[in-house]
């Protein structure tokens, strides 16, 4: 019972149906090998292809040629198959593989998920949709390049001034003295990953010890940290749907391939591989 609730299974059922129908409806599957029938549908298709290429209707004579050509092609095609010319031809193999992939790609478009399914998908993939954590903090960048003397003594002097709330000579430059509700994404872009990791570990309202980033040395005072919330489905419905669709497309393709694979016993006779 549990399995029947899985939307993926719906796909597989639809997929199996589609495959079944495809093979059933394939006219070649039940045609007489010694009879070639050109149906009105075939003729329409020939006409349409002609119009698409030449931007006009074919004349009666041209249509006759198209049909003759179609019949000749069919004869060659059947004879070639009978002689086994399709085997070991990489172009034919590749085309057929593409056709199969094309069919499996289409399946996901046949199925529209319910809101409940998308809600479930959202809950199962919170990392994908969660808003960024936000930080408010004060920051002092210390350019240690400029220190001629003992770096740790200089840093201790700055730490003391910060703790006493005294003004600093350090200029802010590109890095601001204060950031208000900056997202994790923004902070990482400005300061690099190493800085963000350490920001998460700071105690609120206390000047940090000197911390090293990929830019240099900083003191920070974390004032507020706001966990990113998971948005309601309504507000990001399209986004969730797109991600769901992409995931499902991939899952269905893989799973159909897996199902088909299970019908075969695969033996790879390669001495090097088997000895591994």
């Amino acid at each position, binding site marked *: 019972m549990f399995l029947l609730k899985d939307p993926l299974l719906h796909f597989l059922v639809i997929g199996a149906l589609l495959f079944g129908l495809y093979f059933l409806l394939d006219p070649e599957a039940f045609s007489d090998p010694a009879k070639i029938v050109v149906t009105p549908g075939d003729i329409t298709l020939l006409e349409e*292809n002609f119009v*698409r*290429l030449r*931007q006009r209707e074919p004349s009666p004579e041209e249509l006759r040629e198209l049909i003759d050509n179609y019949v000749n092609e069919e004869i060659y095609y059947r004879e070639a198959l009978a002689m086994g010319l399709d085997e070991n031809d*990489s*172009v034919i193999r*590749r*085309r057929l593989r*593409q*056709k199969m992939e*094309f069919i499996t790609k289409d399946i996901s478009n046949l199925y529209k998920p319910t809101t409940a399914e998308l809600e479930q998908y959202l809950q199962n993939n919170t990392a994908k949709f969660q808003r960024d954590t936000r930080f408010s903090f004060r920051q002092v960048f210390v*350019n*240690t*390049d400029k220190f001629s003397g003992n770096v740790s003594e200089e840093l201790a002097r700055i730490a003391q001034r910060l703790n006493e709330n005294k003004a600093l*000579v350090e*200029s*802010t*430059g*590109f*890095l*601001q*003295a204060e950031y208000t509700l900056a*997202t994790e*994404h*923004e902070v*990482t*872009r*400005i*300061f*690099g*990953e190493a*800085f963000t990791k350490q920001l998460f570990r700071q105690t609120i309202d206390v000047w940090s010890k000197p911390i090293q*980033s*990929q*830019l*240099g040395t900083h003191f920070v005072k974390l004032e507020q940290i706001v966990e990113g919330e998971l948005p309601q489905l309504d507000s990001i419905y399209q986004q969730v749907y*797109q991600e769901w669709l*992409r995931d499902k497309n991939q899952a269905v393709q893989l799973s159909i391939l897996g199902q088909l694979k299970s019908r075969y016993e695969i033996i790879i006779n390669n001495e090097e591989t088997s000895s591994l």
Partner: protein
Amino acid sequence: MWNITRKLGTTLLLISFATLSHAENSQSRSKDKLLFGTLHGHSSWSIDAYGLGNREGPDEAYRFARGEEVKDASGNPAQLKMPLDFFMLSDHAEMLGTAPMLTEKGSAVYDTPVAKLVQEGKATQAFTMISNAIISGKPLEGLGDPKVAKSIWQRYVEYAEKYNTPGKFTTFIGYEWTSLPGGANMHRNVIFKDSKVPEAPFTAMDSDRPEDLWSAMEEWRKNGISVFAMSHNGNASLGKMFSFTDSDGVFITKEYAQRRNLNEPLHEAGQVKGVSMAHPQFSPNDEFADFELWNYYLPAGAPVPPLRTNYVREAWKMGLGLQATVGENPFKFGLKGGSDTHGSINTFEEFNNRGNHSLMDNTPKKRMFAKAGQRESVEGGSLFLNPGTLTGVWVSKNERGPIFDALQRKESYATSGTRIKLRMFAGYDFSPKLFSDPNWVDTAYQKGVPMGADLVATGKPVSIAVWAMKSPISGNLDRIQIIKLWTDGIRDYEKIYDVALSDNRKVDPVTGKAEKVGNTVDIKNASYTNDIGAKELKAVWQDPDFVKGQDAVYYVRVLEIPTPRWSTFDAVQLGVEPADTVPTTLQERAWSSPVWLVNK
């Protein structure tokens, strides 16, 4: 009479741009965000990219740019170390999106000759056929159907809309106009400000003359569409990119110059197929000019001699002379970066290069030894390519409007793929203590002009304030240079000033040069240390060679310490010696858009 009205029209347009350029100035700029992005890349919807074996469409391109993990052409996971802030996919408009349809039975193009070649796996022949079609301006049979083109363009636009996430990841609707007259690269990327776009792009099949592209954009603007074009690969233009003549070979006029500046405010500093900034042949005293050069005839991959009218620095110099000759400087353009990848993804990072031409250069072995990469006659042709450049802009918000406006007023810079933070201003009254002011950015805007702008001459010597900080994911800084260009009407000149140097180095007053910063690169392991160089460099500089009444161009170049070139990482991975045809290390850099000193 008609002529006068038209000129008046142009003037009015120029005025409206001038008004626009001050839009950001009304509020404090001290808290601007620095954003990095690319305005140039191709997915499988570009017919040549498809021909190279690329099967990844716009989805993969956008997802990779915003920082997601996707598969590279070899099927290996690929992800940017740092996501991009903005991105414009610029697929070729000519036969846009028809390539994936070449193998789709029942599609409008399935039975065409080029489709047959692709279906038979003859990618190189298909590619040649496509290139020839673009060069000759004659669409391939069945691939130029306007109805098909319109519906594909709508789908293409929807991709950009789907991935645009204001505040975090901005996408622009844009495309490449692929003009190749006689094989000369005259390509332009067209960028739209917002969702207001034409029904169909103006392509090089419509016309391969830049003047006609400008006319199309001028028409669109009348319908409320905000748009401009950005040229690229001056280096592969056979001297045509910054030529003195128009498409008919006629010496350019004032009107030509005005229209060019209005319609093409930016040129791409560099990209995978080489940097177009300067060439040692024209800058013999610039020891840093020989950087990721690429001088080949694009369709055949044959080497060609460098021409002055291929290079940005030369164009900026020549523009000063043309100002006097025709009454308007036609080359008042700023800089942007991009990759021009044809593999949907592009890393910009030397340590993470995946190649840019899909199945032609997707593995270290192919990049090092294959006969590919536009130099098909030479083994290791791909070695001469690079992972592309980035565009930097300082804006109030990561949204289409502010980024587009900054680009349009040329307040942008380019880097060789690194994330150097850079601000540059020119003026007269900058205090030497400017940088001690916490709001120095606002002060600099009040007392001067930012990169990309004109500085009206007052007779006082020009001052330049410049501040640069290292990238969190690259090497320390070596130096900041100011490059000054001027002309005496007969000859053009350049002078390079080292205005800030790391490690307490000084410029030798006799040679005018500073000693090299050193090199910490360990070639065997493709690693380096930041034991040399500076975390940040800054200077308030006054032009010591200022001449009253002389027009000049000033721009900034910031150099990093040497780090391993991407090809060195490949060699380590393969366990072989690095190739001797390319350098093993490079100095990543940033180039600012210039400031023009204008005597009225």
